[in-house]
């Protein structure tokens, strides 16, 4: 934090009265609600996930079947779905986000940098459901259309043949590498669409942290490089990015935290299927999407408890991820920007 060192001037003891202590107590009491909410959340989630955890133990995280009818619950499919969507979206969005941050901080003249910065921040203000609506009504039909042309029997009979083969394999719940990138003939919903929309949604988080740390790079660094005859790109790649690397990493991990817990946009477009990674374009699910889609209908204790266990897992995961991100940002940018 960039606070000046607080020097408390010593006061006569008489003035630090009972009213001061009362006020401090009141403020502390209200502020403690924050801690209370955290503890209550953990307690609540822990208590409700206990039936599932005590029944399945750690098997909950290694078992593949999620079948409410038979009463067996394993979270491998959702955990895989969450990790794959988040990590792939992160991999696509980080270069874009850093590039846009470089544009705003290094390339754009001031009259352009501010509006572009605004727009990127507004991207973070668009609600999840609105992203979901847009993805469903605009991108999904495009993907669906593309899949139709991809499987046009007139022009590509061999692709149709491959699809028929893969569809048979998928029906037996088998996965092969050959079939992984064969589109499902669905309406465009699925893993790929979820990744696309997640990519857009987490962009602004990395971008704004990256922009802030890039602006913190001392001007001397740049000038020294230019004085040696470096081009702009050489200054960026050898003086600015290495210097800002740690801060950017913190921003990336913050974005990862967002991606892991992102719910409705993903729940709307991912197709809600508990099969494990049949196809890149096929239906899947994430932990958050399963909570959104199933918690309301879960009548049986075990089903309900299993869904809450997914919530507990997300809770623990996001606490860990945020903790690491803050640690990195706090440690490696001494002047503190967050």
């Amino acid at each position: 934090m960039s606070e000046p060192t607080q020097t408390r001037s010593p006061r006569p003891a008489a003035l630090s009265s009972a009213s001061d202590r009362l006020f401090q107590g009141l403020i502390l009491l209200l502020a403690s609600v924050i801690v209370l909410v955290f503890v209550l959340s953990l307690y609540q989630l822990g208590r409700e996930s206990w039936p599932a955890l005590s029944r399945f133990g750690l098997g909950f995280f290694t078992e593949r079947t999620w079948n409410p009818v038979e009463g067996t619950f394993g979270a491998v499919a959702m955990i895989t779905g969450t990790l794959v969507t988040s990590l792939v979206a992160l991999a696509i969005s980080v270069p874009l986000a850093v590039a846009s941050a470089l544009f705003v901080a290094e390339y754009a003249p001031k009259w352009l940098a501010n509006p572009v910065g605004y727009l990127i921040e507004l991207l973070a203000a668009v609600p999840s459901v609105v992203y979901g609506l847009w993805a469903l009504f605009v991108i999904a039909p495009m993907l669906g259309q593309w899949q139709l042309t991809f499987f046009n029997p007139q022009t590509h009979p061999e692709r149709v043949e491959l699809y028929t083969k893969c569809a048979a394999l998928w029906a037996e719940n088998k996965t092969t590498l050959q079939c992984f990138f064969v589109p499902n003939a669905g309406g465009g919903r699925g893993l790929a669409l979820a990744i696309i929309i997640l990519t857009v949604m987490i962009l602004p988080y990395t971008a704004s942290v990256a922009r802030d740390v890039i602006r913190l790079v001392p001007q001397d660094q740049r000038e020294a490089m230019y004085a040696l005859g470096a081009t702009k790109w050489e200054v960026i790649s050898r003086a600015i990015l290495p210097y800002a690397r740690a801060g950017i990493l913190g921003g990336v991990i913050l974005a990862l935290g967002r991606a892991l817990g992102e719910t409705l946009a993903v729940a709307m477009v991912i197709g809600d299927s508990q099969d494990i990674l049949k196809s890149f374009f096929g239906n899947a699910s994430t932990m958050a999407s399963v909570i959104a889609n199933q918690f309301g209908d879960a009548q049986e204790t075990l089903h309900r408890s299993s869904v809450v266990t997914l919530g507990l897992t997300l809770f623990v995961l996001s606490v860990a991820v945020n903790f690491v991100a803050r640690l990195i940002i706090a440690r490696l940018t001494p002047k503190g920007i967050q």
Partner: protein
Amino acid sequence: MSAASSSPARRHALSPARRLQNTLMGGLILLATLLVVAPLILIFLYLLREGFAAMFNLDFARAREGLGAVFSGANLDFFTKTPAPEGEKGGGLANAILGSIEMLAMASVIGVLVGVAGGIFLAEYPRHPLMPTIRMVSDVLAGIPAIVMGLVAYGLIVLKFGFSGLAGAVALGFLMMPIVVRTTEEVLKLVPQTVREAGLALGLPKWLVTLRIVLPAAAGGIITGVMLALARVAGEAAPLLFTAFGNSAVNLDPRGPMSALPLEIYRGATSAYDENQRLAKAGALLLITLIFVTSLLARRASRRK
């Protein structure tokens, strides 16, 4: 920023490979920035086109027949009526608009009270032994997924009292808290230490200095923070799914199920009925406009400070 790079003498000294690389990377960065900004513009244009017509029942398909045909069915039902029964035409989102306003108002009570107190605590009592804990927990809470907060509010309130607008408001309030804490702390730290010392030198107790001098000086920034927090949670549907639950009728009683704009957008967008999809698009336009206006106003206000 880099006037040095364009000196003509050095331009000539550059090898073509280095110059090419420099131009190429500059182009790629510009391209990437366009790619980043494009979705926002596309979403907004899409919602303007579809949502505007949906909101006022305009019929742009008959634009060739003249303005009269476009406006023939125009009305304000969207703001005054509740959704029509499934499969029927007409109706609006009055239930959701009122529900959103009421829940956000209730959420603000929790968010502002706890958030501002937390911010005061972190900024004004930095030596208190509990300060690092509260700062860390508040940071961590900011990263908890909204849907998990919904599960928590479900367990704490809905299990005992049933689905209610109050439960939804509590979930939203919990989500607001950490945002308000952070902004309050930051603006309080911007108030110069000398101002506090001046107050103390007059013999005022610390609590009066905090309430009457420091807080008013930071009020603008705190209001900005609250507005940003409101803009942030106004769009959340996930924590409302199983707390406020939704209600197709207007309900102002916080003890009963209540609708909200993001909830109706979610239901409508995933519905098979055209009419529900129409309401969802109009609702999305309304919501996104409110959120954009709020955050732009908040940012403008904070920039002027």
